[in-house]
């Protein structure tokens, strides 16, 4: 709905319908200067593009070398032979495989729940008047300014105590991490969806109610589908944010009573990078970093328009 009008506005602005004959002569005169400026622009843009891409390519290529090559020829971008075994080793011995599995398991639950609970709460707060509405909204909003480190100690202690009563919600449990991720993602999700639900027209919700739909039914079958552009933006934001989260897992996914740790990817990579100092499996580390970054980069390149607008919309609000 809103994107359609937005698109129209854009097309209108870009339409070359208005003549401006004065400009043409001017443009020809400025031609040489413009060309020099363009060359200058491209030079700088290419330099920065190389500064962004070169390290990434270097990491991927180093992941395909063997260890002695990493040490002897650290700068070469072309490995003498492609060592795919680095990836196999990082996947099994470096436990990247289980890090991936843990991350995907946690995210499947946490992103779904964040979106569901976040948009439900945002909807109730945005479209219904009741006592305490503002209070609850500002309570959620305040979470945006408070640094997570402040809560670290009591959060750790709280999760530990919870684990004594409900083992599944204790430290080092997937379900616990899901619940914690959801709680910490609610602030921004509600903040974002709240402003989105405000912009939806009242008439459609009213029409649905007149047709006999309950409040719940109206939300799930009418309003939620209409909020799809917002849901996509905040969904991308949450997937990336939770995929990249490292502090909460490092704090909460600690081994208790000798059971193996269920590390997620970011946390596992940190430990891998600390431990490889002793094992000096450089190519394995490069393979690990490559496996952690390539999936996100590929998803980004495929959906770059949505990702860019999704993430920048988060700042723009």
């Amino acid at each position, binding site marked *: 709905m809103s994107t359609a009008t937005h698109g129209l506005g854009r097309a209108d*602005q*870009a339409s*070359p319908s208005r*003549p401006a004959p004065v*400009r043409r002569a001017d443009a020809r005169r400025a031609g040489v200067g*413009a060309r020099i*400026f*363009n060359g*200058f*622009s*491209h030079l700088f*843009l290419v330099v*920065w593009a190389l500064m*962004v*891409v070169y*390290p*990434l390519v*270097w*990491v991927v290529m180093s992941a395909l070398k063997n260890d002695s090559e990493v040490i002897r020829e*650290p700068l070469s971008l072309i490995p003498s032979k492609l060592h795919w075994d680095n990836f196999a080793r990082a996947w099994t011995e470096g436990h990247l495989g289980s890090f991936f599995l843990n991350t995907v398991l946690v995210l499947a639950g946490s992103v779904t729940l964040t979106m569901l*609970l*976040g948009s*439900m*709460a945002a909807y*109730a*707060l945005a479209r219904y008047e*009741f006592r305490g509405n503002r209070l609850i909204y500002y*309570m959620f909003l305040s*979470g945006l*300014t*408070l*640094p997570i*480190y402040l*809560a670290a*100690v*009591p*959060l750790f*202690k*709280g999760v*530990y105590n919870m684990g004594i009563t409900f083992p599944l919600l204790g430290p080092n449990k997937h379900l616990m991490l899901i619940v*914690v991720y959801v*709680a910490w993602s*609610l602030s921004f999700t509600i903040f974002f969806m709240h402003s989105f639900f405000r912009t939806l027209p009242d008439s459609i919700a009213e029409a649905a109610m007149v047709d006999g739909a*309950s*409040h719940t039914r109206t*939300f799930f079958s009418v309003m939620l589908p209409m909020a799809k552009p917002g849901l996509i933006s905040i969904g991308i934001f949450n997937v*990336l944010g939770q995929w*990249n989260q*490292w*502090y909460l897992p490092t704090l909460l996914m600690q081994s208790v009573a000798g059971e193996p740790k269920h590390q997620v990817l*970011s946390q596992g990579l*940190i430990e891998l*990078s600390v431990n490889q100092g002793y094992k000096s499996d450089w190519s394995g580390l*490069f393979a690990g970093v490559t496996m952690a970054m390539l999936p996100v*980069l590929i998803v980004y390149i495929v959906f*770059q328009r949505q*990702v*860019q607008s999704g993430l*920048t919309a988060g*700042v723009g609000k």
Partner: protein
Amino acid sequence: MRHGVARFVTGFLALPVALYLLYVVWPFVQAAGYSLTDWGGFSGSQNFVGLDNYVRLLSDELIRKAFWHNVFFLVTVPLFTIALALFLAFLLNVGGREDRAGIRGVFGSGLYKIIFFFPQVLSLVVIAVMWQQIYRTDGQGLINGMLIKIGLVDADNPIAFTADPEPFLGVPAVLWWLLLIAVWSGAGFYMVLFSAAMQSIPKDIFEAAILDGANRFHTFFRVTLPLLRDTISVAWVYLGFIALDMYALVFVMTPSQGGPNHASEIFASVLNFTAFQKGQYGYACAMGVALAIFTILLAALQLRITRRDRIEY
């Protein structure tokens, strides 16, 4: 009907509010409470000590150091990131063909935008581990390796990067090296943000400026930049939060997570060290509360400074 609404609202809000109270609000409240005690950790006694922890904060050498390092990042991260992002957005949008619809942007600007955005989708941890290899202090690192090869750096005396506590312009070198990573990873995102804002400025404003005889530089500095003021101030606030959150880089990249010799300590690293290594939970919570108050004051201050009449178009 009224009754239905109450039940519906309660049903929709109960679970989110409960989760949020339990895992976000309650830990914050507890932290504020613990900050008034001398609690050491999981067991042991817990005595009420009033504001002693806060008084201690004021005379803590390490905290003072960490505070100034936080301030350093708070100023430099937004400053350098926004300057670079604006410069890149300027090149991207001001270059290119000039015609009646204004200036088109350089050839391939779409591709540049995709590439510059790359670091934004990578996790801070991936970036940190990657830069750890780039910053290696021997010939195996990307930068040292290159510089040794072309003879600019002596192989026996390579650049120490994040292990270098020597001051540069009055600030430990390690902080400058961390700043470089932050700017590297943030510039592309803010460039895309600024570009989008530039493109949402109606074309007739540019047309009017061009008709009045403004060239592309005038147009940029006199028209575009003032209209971007809102976006830039929002970016400044966001980058301020990111600057307070440099902990991931400090954690992965510096020796003993805040070293060498405390040269890269920031609030968060001192807090974690105090709580989990030294086992002084009460004192660590006081640091957290101080940090929270500092953050909120800063956010309020920034909002006040950057508040100005909006230009509607």
